[in-house]
């Protein structure tokens, strides 16, 4: 019985993130449009985009290899697995012990590794510029992310995300300097990893300003749909990560009843809405920075993560 309910929770989680991810992006776009007094497309536009892309034929460059064609699926699968391991409405996911937070970071790294390779596959300058900038950003974002993981692991005594969330939700932790630093750093990393303003602009096709979009410029049709869905999932993953670790309120603890699962789901959707609103507000209020300012931005995240970890090494009570 317990196993069956565990499987159901895990399955619901996987479907939930898949279904909610485009909505979150659509919602952020809508809010951004409203903030600049535009009407903006419907929040369901990303679903329509995905459906339209899937119906279109794929236009493949002449010398694209098999790697180019399998990358969308590998990328999507790696991000989906990672997203399925981040607690959204409930802790104690069935496969929680399969991979911890470090492995989730590495799964996202795998997705990026293949995307960057695919960017170089066709042999145009655009793919190359996107890939090379993407790996530069990742080379700084990943260590920052790992230091945040260290921070959380030292506070909660575990790198298992469900355990961390359970610990932070059920124990009085209080306000901690290190956690504050980790939160700011995680926010900065999330901005960079999801190719949002001010690091990258997801809505541009201007060669000098784009990073992520340049890398996937050659993709079309169903392949592009998979990559887009992966990108939506990644944004949702980071929002869920911030929510479950720093704002674990009302998250259903392992083994609690159906009612608390319902409350957890409701709370999760409220958190998503709030986070989406804040993200849209932040993006509207800032301008995109030059590519070579990004290292300073991420360097700050790295330093915050390092400082937070250092404080915890010095004393567990910071």
């Amino acid at each position, binding site marked *: 019985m317990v196993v069956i309910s565990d499987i159901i929770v895990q399955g619901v989680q996987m479907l939930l993130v898949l279904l909610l991810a485009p909505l979150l992006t659509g919602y952020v776009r809508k809010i951004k449009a409203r903030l600049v007094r535009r009407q903006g497309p419907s929040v369901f536009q990303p679903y329509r985009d995905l459906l339209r892309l899937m119906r*279109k*034929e*794929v*236009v*493949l*460059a*002449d*010398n694209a*290899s098999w*790697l180019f064609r399998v990358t969308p*699926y590998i990328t*999507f*699968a790696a991000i*989906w*697995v990672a997203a399925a391991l981040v607690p959204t409405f409930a802790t104690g996911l069935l496969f929680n*012990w*399969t*991979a*911890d937070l470090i*492995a989730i970071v*590495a799964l996202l*790294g795998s997705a*990026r*590794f293949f995307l960057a*390779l695919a960017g*170089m*596959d*066709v*042999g*145009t*300058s*655009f793919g*190359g*510029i996107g*890939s*090379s*900038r993407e*790996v*530069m950003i990742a*080379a700084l974002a*990943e*260590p920052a992310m*790992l*230091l945040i993981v*260290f921070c959380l692991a*030292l506070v909660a*005594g*575990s790198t*298992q995300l469900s*355990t961390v969330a359970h610990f932070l939700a059920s124990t009085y932790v209080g306000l901690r300097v290190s956690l504050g630093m980790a939160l700011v750093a995680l926010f900065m990393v999330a901005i960079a990893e999801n190719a949002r303003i001010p690091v990258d602009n997801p809505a541009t096709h201007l060669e000098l300003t784009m990073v992520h979009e340049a890398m996937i410029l050659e993709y079309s049709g169903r392949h592009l*749909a*998979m990559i887009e869905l992966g990108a939506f999932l990644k944004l949702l993953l980071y929002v869920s990560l911030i929510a479950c670790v720093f704002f674990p309120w009302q998250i259903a603890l392992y083994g609690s009843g159906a009612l608390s699962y319902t409350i957890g789901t409701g709370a999760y959707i409220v958190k998503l809405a709030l986070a989406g609103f804040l993200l849209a507000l932040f993006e509207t209020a800032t301008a995109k920075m030059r*590519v*070579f300012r990004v*290292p300073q931005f991420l360097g700050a995240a790295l330093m915050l993560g390092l400082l937070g*970890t*250092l404080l*915890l*090494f*010095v004393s567990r009570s910071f």
Partner: protein
Amino acid sequence: MSAVALQMVCVAGLLGLAMLAIALSRSKTATAVIYGATLAVSAIALTGALRSLLGGATDATTLTLPVGLPWLGAHFRLDALASFFLIVVNLGGASASLYGLGYGHHDPAPHRVLPFFPAFLAGMNLVVLADDAFSYLLCWEFMSLASWALVMAHHREPGNAKAGYVYLVMASFGTLALLLAFGLLAGPAGDYGFAAIRAAQHTPYAATLVLILMLLGAGSKAGLVPLHVWLPLAHPAAPSHVSALMSGVMTKVAIYGFIRVMFDLQGQPTWPASAVVLFLGSITAVMGILYAMMEKDLKRLLAYSTIENVGIVFVSLGLAMAFEANGMKLAAALAFTAALFHVLNHSFFKSLLFFGAGAVLTATGERDMDKLGGLIHRMPFTSFVVLVGCVAISALPPFNGFVSEWLIFQAVLQSPELAQWALKIMVPAVGAMLALAAALAAACFVKAYGVTFLGRPRGPAAKTAGEVDRFSLAAMFILAALCLLAGILPGLAIDALAPVATQIVGSRMPAQASQPWLSIVPIAEGRSSYNGLLVMVFITATASLAVYFIHRFASRALRRGPAWGCGFSDATPAAQYSGVSFAQPIRRVFGTLVFHARDHVTMPPPGDIGPARLRIELHDLVWSGMYAPIADAVGFLSTRLNRLQFLTIRRYLSLVFATLVTLLLVLAIWS
């Protein structure tokens, strides 16, 4: 026959093969005979080592040969640590021999490689087996010289002579350091047997000196920054299967020497020693991968990446030393096992990648990545296995590189319990450096793979390349399979390493075989666990699900067309991103500090149709700051001393007389 005797017979076989190779050298069948026989002998030695490690043979077997110093003899011993490193050596040897069966046929001068190849393997085996300082040093020097001969195999190619020269100087220097270290360890009584050294007490002063000397001796062979300068010159200069042995295996023999002396012979490590090792290891990891990122020669890139991996192993060993000094047995076992596991993993994927580079070299005759490209169409199998190697070395799940780095991160997370403030402050920074190195490694191998195998061919060589022979492919596929197996079943490897950890740090990680679903759990299940098998199953399942749904419900239409180029549809392949341009952002971020990198752009004035030129200036600060002054000083002194060569006999005699008197005076005053 005891286990150690079996190994010695294999070594004798390898030495015999070296002799046979000299006799056969000019015959046509020599390549096949020698590599085939080396493969067989290595496989026997590998089986023997595996049996003694997996059989849980914690009790060592010894063997004494009546050669060497008259009063000492030559001692050889097979314990758990030696068994593990014999596995690394002989697995590398077997795969390199298999690869050589095909690759060796392309060698223009096989007689320059064949005799030294089995001799080199024999040397490495002997170093690991040696049980007294004298035989250890002798075998070490034999290994160095055999590998030097292999580096010089293609001595007419530009740069190889310099590589051989620098290697010889550094190797002699390293052996000198080791000689002094063993002298100190043997103490005033001068007993060179390892058993006597292990039993003796070492003063802290001697222990510090031994640490420095071991870092110089074993560290220079392993490629620790700043003693790494010879490595990127020498490793790529050798034929590719030998490069694989030197990078994937010989650096491990150096690490073995370090472990043997610092953990086994020296006794309990101290925490300041661990701080030094941690510092050097983390610098090595980051510097190595930054150098690799800037490199456009494929084999040199791989050699620099070896430096990075050696740094990672040393970080892990440093952690093990720190934990052991503080009496944290479990954490020490974790860090030590992680180091060994990374040693094993690196020998898998680095050999694989060097084989891949050799395949590219065979197919195109080109090592410069910026002249390659598009090989994925011409060499489908090679490009597939090299991709596996690149993913594995970039520490991405579900492959093996990730597991060992994950274990090291888990060890870092154990270190707040350390008692010393210096270490408490240092370890987070080391963790950050390690994470940086891992992220840069991924960037570096995106570059290496993307520029070499993807895109459009940049030159005629890449356009007409063909797939390599079956033996080479078999060797690469076996290693790629091992990378995956060690990644999805890490628990088995960790359990197999338990006897080594027990022998060296006196404790072991919890048994992993009993964990449900083959997860690995370094400390306790609540703290952290990872399951490579399930990660792979999940990724495969979700990817298949996605493929199924897409192909069931989405449009399956597909049209080939020219790549979209913003109106410049027929740009030449030279307009693609090259390795140099790919590295530009990272060069700008890190290079200005680490290499004093500058990009000089010369633009012709408007109206001039001359080409614009980009010149990149990189400085190897280690070379210019450390080695160039030493070389200058040596040059200066030798010019001065040169005068002594042209004295009259009268002056020579008075010089000898003066020296004698001075020495006698010193002796008189001293005693």
